[in-house]
């Protein structure tokens, strides 16, 4: 279990190796990687800047991770979210869930992403090649995605 907020990139193979090292109880590992797209609507994006709320971000991610561990039989999980200025194609977020069975790993990873997107205090600002920039609006679909996890 772990939560990291960092400017640095991450390496999935290395993170997976750290999670599975010496363990033979894991049968299924799901990873989700979010990356910066080069367009927003039909406009080109030159950079994306991620702002966050230090302290609260880590607390929210840890709370969401703990809830996933309560709801699914997870062997391990990891959330890494990058901050700062990122180029198109760059990694933004990595979620890893490991379990004995695949459906638990898949569901927990989706749950973590749905909650992360609507609860963790991160904000994206997209800059265009002409120097203008806008804050990304929250999407209704991300809020709607949460509803299926209601207990």
């Amino acid at each position, binding site marked *: 279990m772990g939560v990291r907020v960092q400017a640095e990139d991450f390496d999935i193979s290395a993170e997976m190796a750290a999670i599975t090292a010496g363990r033979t109880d894991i049968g299924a590992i799901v990873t989700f990687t979010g990356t910066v797209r080069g367009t927003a609507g039909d406009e080109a994006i030159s950079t994306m800047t991620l702002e966050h709320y230090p*302290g*609260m971000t880590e607390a929210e991610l840890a709370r969401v991770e703990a809830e996933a561990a309560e709801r699914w039989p997870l062997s391990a999980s990891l959330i890494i*979210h990058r901050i700062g200025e990122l180029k198109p194609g760059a990694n*933004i977020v990595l979620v890893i869930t490991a379990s004995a069975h695949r459906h638990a790993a898949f569901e927990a990873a989706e749950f973590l992403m749905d909650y992360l997107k609507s609860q*963790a205090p*991160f*904000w994206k600002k997209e800059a265009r090649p002409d120097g203008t920039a806008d*804050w990304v609006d*929250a999407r209704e679909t991300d809020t709607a995605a949460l509803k299926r996890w209601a207990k």
Partner: protein
Amino acid sequence: MTTLSQASKPTDADERTVTLRYFAWVREKVGTADEVASLPAKIETVADLIDWLKARGENYEAAFARADVIRVAIDQTHARSDAKIAGAAEIAFFPPVTGG
């Protein structure tokens, strides 16, 4: 622009000191990332605090113009606009989150 609550002079006993933090476009519109504010005792809820802030100047008025979309955290925990702020050390205002 000046409200009755600001016009009336509070006593020291009525005031509390709280750190206010702003993020993303709320921060840009207010013009600062954080500040320490002395709040009159009559401010009981998040909604009261937003009303009080909006009266402090055009920058605040612009930042909180659409109060319905502003999200709030009291001591780093998500809170509703009707949440009581008694005992809070840090209150943050920000747009809906867009990470991930």
